[in-house]
């Protein structure tokens, strides 16, 4: 019995302290990694608000596509109403442009083309051609109490859904 316990607890003082030391070092290393990660992740961002005021709806004539370069969104006034598309290409983040002569949205960086109207059975925002992996997302749009169009760039809404349009 005595011999058995001696065999299972056969850890010398040196080994014990080595294990204790390595153990505390690993815990400290994990803690340091966690602190470093938290430190590198900013808690406060001085970035523009995701909600953009796009002004009064009558600024946008029927069947018009308007790019707001600063906020990176399109305000589109179609038969169904006003809706908003992101102007940031889903490929690598370039700012796309509205090509009125072709009736499409095109990205200058790598040539992705996106539909705006229902032509060719594509919903607005869907890709016609190019490397973009996803359609341009629709953004939540609504009217505030002053009658201004507001767009929330941080919220995607389903394409062609009833609530994705503003009707005035």
């Amino acid at each position: 019995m005595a011999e058995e316990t001696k065999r299972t607890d056969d850890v010398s003082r040196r080994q014990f302290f080595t294990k204790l030391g390595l153990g505390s070092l690993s815990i400290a290393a994990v803690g340091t990694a966690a602190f470093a990660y938290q430190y590198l992740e900013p808690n406060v961002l001085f970035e523009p608000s995701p909600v953009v005021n796009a002004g009064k709806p009558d600024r946008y004539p029927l069947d018009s596509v308007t790019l707001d370069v600063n906020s990176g969104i399109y305000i589109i006034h179609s038969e169904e109403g006003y809706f908003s598309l992101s102007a940031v290409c889903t490929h690598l983040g370039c700012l796309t442009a509205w090509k009125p002569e072709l009736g499409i949205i095109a990205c200058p960086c790598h040539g992705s083309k996106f539909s705006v109207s229902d032509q060719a059975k594509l919903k607005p925002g869907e890709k016609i051609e190019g490397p973009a992996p996803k359609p341009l997302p629709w953004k939540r749009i609504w009217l505030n109490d002053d009658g201004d169009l507001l767009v929330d760039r941080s919220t995607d809404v389903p394409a062609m859904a009833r609530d994705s349009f503003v009707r005035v």
Partner: protein
Amino acid sequence: MAKTIDQHFDSLRETRVWRSIFRSGTGSSTLKRALAIQQNVFLHLFSTKVRTRMLSVSATWYLGTLTLGTFLILVATGIPLMLYYHPSAPQAYADTKDLQFVVSSGLFLRNLHRWSAHAMVFLVFAHMFKVFYRGAYRPPREFNWVIGVVLLLLTLLLSYTGYLLPWDQLAYWAITVGSNIASAVPVIGGKIHFLLLGGNAVNANALLRFYVLHCMILPLTAIFFVAIHFWRIRKDGGLYSHGSEPAVVRAQAASRSATEIPGGEKEAQ
């Protein structure tokens, strides 16, 4: 009789101050010359003795040395540029323009930094191709090839982080596109993108982060790996070994196949 220039140098080498710094002393014996290399903190990374053939232009085209040369130019021009450049969104672009049009010799330093950066990327690739076609990546140099690949990535990252610093439209969109590539990493891509830029878009935080990466973290990392790279050349037996020359490798392969085809089993015995 007047002393010759060599004799003047010899008496300089005998002085106490000189001997306190360089311990090897005068004389051109093989031992003294070996000690001069071995006891110098910078030169001790290299072999104490090198065959003249290894230093011939055809062996390496000096591409690695030239790459080091451009790196040293980049350090020497980059530090003075830092004295006039503020990595802040309102000032960065104006500072770049000031360096071009207001600061004395600023245009020269900035252009030298830029062209050396381009040259370094070119030379790193040329060096890699030369090593590849010479077969100098073969054992025992596999590990140094890996270090070389790390250095290639560091060079590209240095180039990429430096690209944002002028803070113009070209820089902005290049980094927007480049950092979105990081988002393509599965699962943690978005997180990497956020940490790299210090935000969701290329902003003041991104400029500062790229500045710190460009001026501190990446150069120090590069120096660390360059030191290992040079030290490994010595440890792996010089710039290249006779055995890894294409003609020798072909001859070995030919003799091996010559012995193997008629009596492959005999060799096993």
